[in-house]
Structures are given as C-alpha cells and as structure tokens.
C-alpha cells in the first residue's frame, strides 16, 4: 500500500430517526437532496476536490441502497488503483462480531484499515451534513499549528448554541474548553463534526477510550474532552460557508429551499468545485405549453404540465396538468396527479399524490411528508368527486 499523508474516514452509519418515513429503508447519508444529490455526495465531493483520494466509509444502518449507490466510488472519481473509496461495514472476527458502538468505536474497529495507508493525519467527517469545504486548507492550518487535533467550527446563533458541541478558544484559536450541548453556552462556536487528527494521537486516544468503562465511545462526548483534559494541542478551524445538519424534516426542507434564494450561499453551479453524484440516465426535462415554473430547481427526466413555484423537483417527477406545487421538495420518480396541490411538503421517492389531492398547506407550521412509495388518494376519484 502506498503512503498517504491524509486519509478520510466518513461516518455514514446514521439512522436519521428524526427523518421518519424518509429513512425507513435508507441510511441518512443516502437521503435525497438538492434535486439530484444524496447527502453523502457533498462530503465525498469535498474529499476529492480537496485532493483526499483515500476514503473509508463506515456503514451500519440499512446500507443496501447506500452500498449500491457508492459502488466502488466511480461517480466521485474514487475508483483508484491505490486508495480510493472503501465501504467498511462491521464484521465478524475470530472472536465474534461487534456492531459499531459509537463514532469513536467505529474508527477503533478499523484501525487495521487506516494503518494500511500509514497516514500522518486522519480526517473524520460525517455523511450527514451539507457543505462545501476545502479540507486541504484545514490540514495546512493543522500542520502550521503542530496540532494534535483540529476541529472545524462555525458560528451559530446564540439561541441555537445549546444544540451543538460548543468550543471556547483563545486568541490563537486553541481550544480551551469544550462542552457537548451545554445548557449555558459560553460561546457560539459550534463543532461541525469535522476533525483532523494526527494519527499517532488519535490511535492512542482510541485505544485508551476502548479500554475505558463507561464510555459512549463518541468523538464529541469522549475523545475530545479526554484530549482536552490531557492538555493536547487542540485547535479550532473557522469555517464561514454554508453548513447544515439536515437531521430533521424541517431542516431538510429548509436546506432545499435555501438553494432557491436569488444568490444561494451554497452554489451548486461552481464548475471549480463540482458536487459529483450518480447521474440518472434520463432525457431532458419537458415543460408543457401550460406549465409555469418560477424560482425552482428541476432535474432531468421530469415532466411538468402544472405550476411549480419555489420548489425542488428531482429526476423523473411527473407534475400533472393544473396541479400546483409550492414551497415543496418532490423526490425522484414521484407523481403529482392532475389538479393536485402540494404546498410546504416533502413528497418521498416514488410516492404518488393522486388527482385532486392536497398535501400540506401554506398556513401550516409543519412540513407535510409523504413517505417513499406511499400513495395519497381521494376517497373518490376526481372524476366522480367533480364531474365535468
């Protein structure tokens, strides 16, 4: 195996419970986003665009769709002869099988994989977040600081701070305090869950943590506090771009809507930092003579015969005549029947909203959700309900 200065370990085992029906048969990193992508495309593309071409993807929950999606990494250019992308599910050893017990334990169980590449640094990221980030700049700073670990941080509104891991740093950016979801946050610098470790330090910490009981074997709850207690050189790396944890229906919807702003802070059209994805093989989208489309994003293979406003349509979506879609996200292959109305909603992959049905409403606080493959229909078909 060749020597790699820095390799990435991508945690993709998340179940994404709060995404409900959207993650029933799907790991969270495989959830659709942005008209074409799955969430994990962003971190994988970040790796490639940052020049990191060895990526271990740790899977555990419902990995079937995710595995098939990832393949050997060709869509991201990660099908390399050496390095490249490797999917790392939990497995059975001579002493028996052990599921991943926490984020740190997942990495611990794959120390053997990491050591094959003899890296100096290991980047730990999660497949749950939407952002574009050049990890090579973070690595440069890590090296300049002679840091043991560098944690990417972002400024969050004070009101939200208690939902995050919060760091206090000195004027040089060195971490002086870390609190996981503090009730009284002392700072509004939140950890993005993006870490660069010097491998020597991380390996020691993982081995020590594994021997510790009780431990939740988690980076935020165990590894970082322990390193801090040991006076290790922990630094923060400030990131000021777009970053979003799309862990809830609300935030998934919001992140999609963010793309529709006049000047979205997450630019998908930047040719120098492409987000790679598995490309569905579909014809160009068709807009009928009656269609209207405003402030929206639409992907290949869709057919629009109705009215679409401030919405994101994935590939292969059908929007029937006279239907109205507003402030909504319509996932791949979903069908919106004639005269249907979808407002402030997420319609899952392959779902059907029957003729004349209404999903969601502008007045509602909540985002309506139609689960993947679900069918919404009127008690009576439209023809009978509203005879022409």
């Amino acid at each position, binding site marked *: 195996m060749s020597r790699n200065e820095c390799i990435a370990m991508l945690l993709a085992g998340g179940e994404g419970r709060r995404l409900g029906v959207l993650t029933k048969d799907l790991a969270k990193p495989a959830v659709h986003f*942005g*008209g*074409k992508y799955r969430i994990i495309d962003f971190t994988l593309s970040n790796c490639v665009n940052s020049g990191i071409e060895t990526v271990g993807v740790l899977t555990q929950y419902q990995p079937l769709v995710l595995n098939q999606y990832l393949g050997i990494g060709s869509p991201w250019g990660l099908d390399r002869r050496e390095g490249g992308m490797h999917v790392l599910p939990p497995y059975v050893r001579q002493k028996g099988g052990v599921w991943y017990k926490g984020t740190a334990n997942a990495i611990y169980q794959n120390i053997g994989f990491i050591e094959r590449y003899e890296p100096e640094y290991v980047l730990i990221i999660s497949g749950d977040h939407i952002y574009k980030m050049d990890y090579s700049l973070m690595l440069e700073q890590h090296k300049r600081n002679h840091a043991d670990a560098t944690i990417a941080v972002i400024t969050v509104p004070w009101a939200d701070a208690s939902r995050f891991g919060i760091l206090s740093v000195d004027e040089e950016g060195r971490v002086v305090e870390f609190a996981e979801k503090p009730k009284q946050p002392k700072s509004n610098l939140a950890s993005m869950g993006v870490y660069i470790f010097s491998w020597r330090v991380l390996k020691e910490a993982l081995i020590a943590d594994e021997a510790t009981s009780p431990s939740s074997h988690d980076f935020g709850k165990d590894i970082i506090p322990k390193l801090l207690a040991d006076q290790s050189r922990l630094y923060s790396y400030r990131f000021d771009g777009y970053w979003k944890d799309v862990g809830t229906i609300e935030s998934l919807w919001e992140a999609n809507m963010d793309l529709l702003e*006049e000047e979205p802070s997450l630019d*998908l*059209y930047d040719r120098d930092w*492409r*987000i*790679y*994805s598995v*490309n569905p*093989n*579909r*014809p*160009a*989208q*068709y*807009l*009928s*003579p*009656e*269609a*209207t*489309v*405003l*402030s*929206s*994003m*639409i*992907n*290949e293979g869709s*057919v629009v015969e109705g009215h*679409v406003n401030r919405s*994101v*349509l*994935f590939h292969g979506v059908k929007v029937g005549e006279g239907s109205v879609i507003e402030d909504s996200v319509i996932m791949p292959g979903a069908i919106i029947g004639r005269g249907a109305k979808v407002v402030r909603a997420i319609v899952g992959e392959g779902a059907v909203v029957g003729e004349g049905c209404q999903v969601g409403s502008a007045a509602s606080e909540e985002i309506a959700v139609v689960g993947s493959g679900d069918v919404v229909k009127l008690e009576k078909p439209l023809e009978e309900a509203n005879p022409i």
Partner: protein
Amino acid sequence: MKLPLMGVINLIHETEEMGSLTASRCLATVPFAGRYRLIDFVLSSMVNSGVPRVAVFAHTKFRSLMDHLGSGGNWDLHRKQNGLFVLPPSMEDMTDFGKGDLYQFYRNRDYFARSGLEYVVVARSHMACNVDFAAILDQHREKGSDITVVCKKWPHAQTGLTRKVKLDAGGRVVEMQDHFGRLASDLVSMEMYIMRKDLLMDLVETSLAQGKDHLVRHAIVPRLSELNVDAYMHDGYLGVVNTIPSYYRHNMELLNPDVWNELFFRPGPIFTKVKDEPPTRYRSGSQAIHSLVANGCEIEGTVENSILFRGVKVRKGAVVRNSIVMQNGIIGENGRLENCILDKEVEIRPQQQLRGTSEMPFMALKRNVI
C-alpha cells in the same frame, strides 16, 4: 437476454447535408434532443435488445466520437468478452478513405471471424429511434429471410434523405432506390440490415472481387431478386436526421410528449455519456413553456418551443423561441432568438436579435460570440 447478434454502426458513406453542424464532428456525434448525440439512439437500442458486441466503423472527424464513446461503459458495453469496438480506417493507407464500406468489412474480417455470434445487423447513426432488435431477429428467423431491412411507413413529404423501398404483397423487398431516385413509395429504409454473418462476409468478398465496394448499392440492391430480402415494419417514432431542416424538425417534434415518451423510453431507455451537471434552475421572472431543457441551465428570461442543451444560460429579459441552443450557450440580457440553432458554446450579446425560419434556421458556429 444475450442475442446471437453483433451490431455494426457504419459511419462510412454517410449521406448528409448538415452544414456547419458537421464541420468538426461526424454525423454520429451531432448533439440532439438536449443531451444526446445521434449515435446514442441506435447504440442504446442495440444494448437494450441484448446485442452483446458492437463495432463502430469510424471514418472521418471521429475525435468527438472517441471522446463520446470512451470504453463504452455508459452503454454497459465495457465487457470482458464482446463489448464496444471503435474501428477507424487504417491510417497507413490514405487511399482507404476513398474506398467503400465493403473494404472496411474486409479489413476487419478477423474481427467478425473471432466472434461466435451468428447474425450481424449493419446500421447507421442518424436514425433517431428506439428499436427492438430482438423482435427483428425473431421475424428474420421465423420468415427464413436472407436479409431483413427495417422499414418505416413514411407517407408525408419528409425533410431527411432516405432510401425508398417497394415491397410485394408478402412483404418482400422488390425495389430499393437511393434518396435521389424516382421510386414512388411511402416506405423508407431505416438503413438497418440483418443477415447471417457468413452471408455478409460472402457478399463482401464476392462484391469486392467484382470491383464493387458499397454494401447496400452494390451488394444488396442488385441481389433483390436472388436473395430473400424482407422488410420489418418499425411502429415507433422515427427521425431521419441528415439535413438541417430534418435536424430542426425532429428536435422540435420532441415537444410532443407522446414522441418524447416513445423515443426515450420505449422499448428501453436511451443512454449517453454522463456529465456532472446540477439540476436546472429557474429564477424568479423566468417564463419557460413547451420546451425541453437539459440539466445545468439557468433560466431568467423567456423560453418557448425550444430545446436547451446542458448548461445554457438565458439572462434577464432574453427571449428564446423556436430555437435549439447547444451546450453552454449564453443568451445575454434582452437578447432575442427566433428559429435559431446555436452550436456549442455560442454567446449571444445583450440586446442582440437573431432570426431564421423553420425551413432555414439561423445557424451559429461553435464558440462564436455574436
């Protein structure tokens, strides 16, 4: 299911009047329908039908072809056995370029001999259609034909150049004439010929020995009375794309959703080289109707009855009507296009107005700024 059928997509002797669209590319790679190249249709049809081995007889200007096809992975033709083979003329002998397609078959006789597949279909790249070769082969075998020609009823005056065909009552081909011939018939050849491999090689060697070098004209047409040449009638959509009016017309026909569905999905999907483009973005103030729009576009103006390829930008106040805009075209603010075909990467300056007719659209050359 794997068919005992190998495909040849023959790019030698392409009849075409495509003007600047084929100035730097062969007919096979003329962009079509928003994100495809012409060759995608016959190639995808072969793959979907189970044809396991496809040769492309490249001729001239095939750099774009090599770039487009790569190793065939996008068509699932990167295989351990069989797969895709691009066979250019041999460069050591310049006179090869002037020679007919039979020479190319002859030069590649090893290629044909090596394959254990029993039948060959020889096709062309400029037929926009979605064909099931398995059904054609079935008819060929059931009827015991020597050669089966795929034909299409074509009752109207058409814009593309096609060979006309006349059948007897039993569906046997009794006459076939080039597009400039005077044969009165509402049937045209889709230039797909199925026969046994050994018959093909026999025709190749016999005809060459007689000093003839053109498969259809010299080896098939003169043998219509001697061989059983039967027609297979294609039901689905057909676009014959080898003139500028036919190019324009068959693009525009895709704005009929029935045609769109038929051509792109039935019997199978059409594959092409994938590109990493984001979805298309419609901004506030955009007005896009009755159009086909590929990925990666940004629409701020008005688009009507038009085909936009990948990455096209229509700026504020711009109007694109009855036009075809290829990859990465930019229509500047308040620009106005009517009946235009813009080749790849054309930039239209703000306020600029261009207008052609549907018979003779305004043609803009690749990478021009107008």
